[in-house]
């Protein structure tokens, strides 16, 4: 059906239906990226509302329960609907290109994971029209149980996250299989770009981390709907069981959020320093070490829950040890700059700023790895500062580096460097204005998740300062949007490898044809395009043989609609679930019988 000759460049089909039925990893990547960025703006708007309320003592902009919904939905939106899908956008678009493949291992599964993501995201976000969850993203029992949260908010949380988890699990399996099996000839594991490595690592993390979350969510669902009491102390359950289950998922989740950014930065720094990544094996293995250690640190989120001295000592030591591989990464990134000839594009600004801001988050993280210190830091604004330096200073900085770096590859067009500078500097200043004073507020004793605070506590000045900073961030994002929409209207001028980068995605046209590569590369070194350039090796010959690409399919979106309705039924009427089940069943049936050539 979609057999294209090797020399045919651009896909010819366009229109909404072509996007709905697409199984092309690049289009799915764009869908993920655009959805993720839209949710990033939405989550940012929620944050602006909160900062407005907290600007002055005894603020009156937002009342208590609405504020709880805002901080709950801000976290859920940023984590599950913004940073994860933006990362997924890059995996989808870049991984097959970077390993020299023509698509992912399971293209229809890839489409199914996107549409399921959109279904779960809709359930979670549309809760604002009914009752948004207000128990925090960590949703501690027993506050999340029926007696204390009677409305439907927590049910939206449970069903939304179950649906999103399903989507992430499918994507993670797909990418693990793709990376293991579809690498171009000659691309050994230790020749893979670091971004591919990090994607592989987080795929494994997701496959292992989502099951505990699913178990916990289903236990909570049973507590709330069917009268079990896994987490209700008065009935023999244990509220701390939820915390253990949640953080066994939650801490690896943090690395799921940050490792893609580390991968992106490990691509951007060498390209613009014009030299290979310093200590590639060290960067790869420290990434793996971080992932392994992420399984033995979860209880540092629970130092104040009354755990005994010995478990706290063990988790403290484990947590501090994560500082070692993280430190190794930072040193290697810095050494990549050393001796380079650095071209400061906007992407490079973001990548270098990432080193600085992520390091601040890393340092404060090691600080509250010490349980005595954490007894003062826990649940104060110091932790808010820490996590935003990791997730904004780390993940978001890395993602912006990736956007500026890969925009020409994805669109054939360049983002304006001049507007990019404005965007970068305002974002950088704004984020530091917003989040650095939160360290001071935490030390001055300001608790997290409070919708109001009294005057006379000396928290007013830095809160106002942080609020101003958050508006500076908002302005910088408006500039980015202007830059984006201006750029996509320009004529495409980007050649295949405008940055003179070393990795395979730059070895095909910008944007790439539907089949990615006219001819498959043979990889001879870790930086294949630089190796070929330096050794006078021509790009592979186009043979003109037919390239088989998977046909578009509407079954993925059909199954995703079925899965979403299954969830919606749990929130409304079981008849809706039954309908969803029928649709999903029909979809799976059709999927299985669909011809694939």
């Amino acid at each position, binding site marked *: 059906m979609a057999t294209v000759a090797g020399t045919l460049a651009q896909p010819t089909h366009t229109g909404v239906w072509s996007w709905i039925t697409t199984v092309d990893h690049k289009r799915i990547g764009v869908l993920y990226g655009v959805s993720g960025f839209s949710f990033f703006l939405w989550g940012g708007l929620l944050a602006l509302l909160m900062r407005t309320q907290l600007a002055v003592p005894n603020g009156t902009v937002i009342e208590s329960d609405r504020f709880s919904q805002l901080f709950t939905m801000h976290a859920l939106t940023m984590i599950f609907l913004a940073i994860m899908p933006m990362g997924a956008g890059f995996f989808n678009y870049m991984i097959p290109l970077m390993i020299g493949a023509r698509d992912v291992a399971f293209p229809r599964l890839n489409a199914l994971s996107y549409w399921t993501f959109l279904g779960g995201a809709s359930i979670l976000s549309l809760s604002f029209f009914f009752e948004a969850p207000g128990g925090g993203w960590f949703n501690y029992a027993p506050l999340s149980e029926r007696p204390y949260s009677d409305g439907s908010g927590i049910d939206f949380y449970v069903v939304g996250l179950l649906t999103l988890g399903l989507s992430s699990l499918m994507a993670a399996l797909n990418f693990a299989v793709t990376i293991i099996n579809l690498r171009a000839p000659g691309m050994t594991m230790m020749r893979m770009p670091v971004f591919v490595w990090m994607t592989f690592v987080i795929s494994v993390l997701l496959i292992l981390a989502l099951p505990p979350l699913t178990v916990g969510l289903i236990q909570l669902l049973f507590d709330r709907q069917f009268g079990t009491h896994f987490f209700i102390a008065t009935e023999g359950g244990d509220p701390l069981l939820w915390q253990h289950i949640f953080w066994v998922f939650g801490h690896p989740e943090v690395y799921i959020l940050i490792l893609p950014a580390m991968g992106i930065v490990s691509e951007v720094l060498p390209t613009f320093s014009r030299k290979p990544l310093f200590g590639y094996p060290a960067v790869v293995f420290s990434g793996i070490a971080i992932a392994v250690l992420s399984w033995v640190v979860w209880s540092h989120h629970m130092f104040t829950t009354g755990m005994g001295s010995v478990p706290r000592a063990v988790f403290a030591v484990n947590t501090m040890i994560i500082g070692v591989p993280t430190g190794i990464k*930072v040193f290697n990134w810095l050494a990549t700059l050393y001796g380079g000839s650095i071209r400061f594009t906007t992407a490079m600004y973001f990548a270098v700023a990432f080193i600085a801001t992520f390091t601040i988050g890393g340092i404060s993280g090691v600080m509250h790895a010490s349980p005595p210190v954490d007894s003062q830091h826990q649940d104060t604004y110091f932790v808010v500062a820490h996590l935003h330096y990791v997730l904004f200073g780390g993940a978001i900085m890395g993602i912006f580096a990736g956007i500026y770096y890969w925009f020409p590859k994805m669109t054939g067009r360049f983002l304006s460097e001049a507007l990019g500078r404005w965007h970068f500097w305002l974002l950088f200043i704004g984020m530091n204005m917003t989040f650095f004073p939160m360290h001071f507020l935490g030390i001055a004793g300001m608790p997290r998740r409070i919708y109001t605070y009294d005057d006379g506590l000396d928290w007013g000045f830095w809160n106002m300062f942080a609020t101003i900073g958050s508006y500076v961030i908002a302005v910088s994002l408006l500039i980015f949007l202007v830059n984006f929409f201006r750029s996509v209207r320009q004529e495409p001028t980007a050649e295949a490898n405008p940055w003179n980068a070393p990795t395979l995605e730059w070895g095909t046209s910008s944007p790439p044809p539907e089949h990615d590569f006219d001819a498959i590369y043979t990889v001879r070194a870790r930086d294949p395009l630089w190796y070929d350039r330096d050794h006078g090796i021509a790009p592979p010959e186009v043979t003109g043989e037919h390239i088989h690409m998977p046909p578009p399919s509407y079954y993925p979106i059909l199954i995703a609609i079925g899965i979403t309705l299954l969830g919606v039924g749990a929130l409304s009427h079981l008849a809706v679930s039954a309908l969803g089940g029928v649709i999903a069943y029909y979809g799976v049936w059709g999927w299985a019988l669909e011809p694939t050539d």
Partner: protein
Amino acid sequence: MYDAAPFAAAAPRRLTVGVADGTGTGGWDWRASVAARVGTVAGAWEGTGVRARVAAPRRTPGRPRIRALRRGLVPLALVVLAVALLGCDAPMSTSEIEGSWNKEVWKPYWVIIWLAGIVFVAIMAATIVLSLMYRERPGREARQIHGNTKFEVVWTIIPVVIVLVMMVPTLDSLFKLDEEPPADALKVEVIGHQWWFEFRYPELDIVTANELHIPEGRVVDYALRSVDVIHSFWVPQLAGKVDMVPGRDNRMAFSALNARPEPYLGQCVEFCGTSHANMRFRVFVHTAEDFERWAREQAAPRVSSVSRTAEEAFLAAPCLGCHTVRGTNAAGIAGPNLTHVGSRTTIGSGMLENTPAELRRWIANSSAVKPGSKMPPMAQSAGGTLTDEQIDVIIGYLQSLK
């Protein structure tokens, strides 16, 4: 609301880790020299509310090199101090060391802050310097280096050493904080409710709410419980926090170092629902004699000087369903014990001053003041059953319960 001046006036307490007054254990002496060497930088922390007191070494005249360092940092220090004036002496500052627990916290904290500061400066400097030094220039060729094993070993060892240096005082403090309290420790039960704190003194037969009274210098053994959701008990100047988890008996023990007339401020720090932000409490630290007197008064049933007609009005109102006044047949347990409510400085878990006007606001419609408050509105104008006159009488009665 709280005047910072009296706090500062109590000054020359030097409660950190024996940097200046030599009270620290021998193991930590090296810190004094570190503090002297980089003393001015300590000023930088003052803007942050981190004010534990390494102040003295900073003021002693140093060697010329250090004086030069100081001159270089004067403008910076001035800026930081200007900022500090806006943020120092915060009534809930974790860096004000007023309790034995917090004193123990700051032992590893100082080591960690210095290490964090050094790493911060080093990485920021390296990032900036390398970025500026190796910008592209005509004629510059990037050196194609792939790595260097020696460097990898060195910068694996650096974080290992840093982490080891952090671990030793951390583990030392951790186990000290968990030590069993002495047998003569004052026992206090802290019980979390949505959204107020109940304090019980089982040995003294006292039940009170939202205002904890403890004697200076004596270890208090806290049993932390909750009747509903998870709360957390935190008085930043005295101690770190420990959660109050339903179904569990959490413990913590510490002493307050100094009696003073102003209360220490505490707050729930585990998100616990609608009025989490309003779940505040106060800790009064007395001298031993003052505490004895307070305990005697509180252990007694309600004062006998109350007006009998006012008491009858109170007992006829819905109040007794949730509140206890010992010596009467009001024995409800859902809300705070009111036996000596007139002696408290605040009502509504630290939200309002305990004055007739504020009591009127509270009784009339408490959830208008404190969202989610479990106490139903009492005034007829807000849907309750009491007339303004009845409320006046009840206010008079409550105020008399000293």
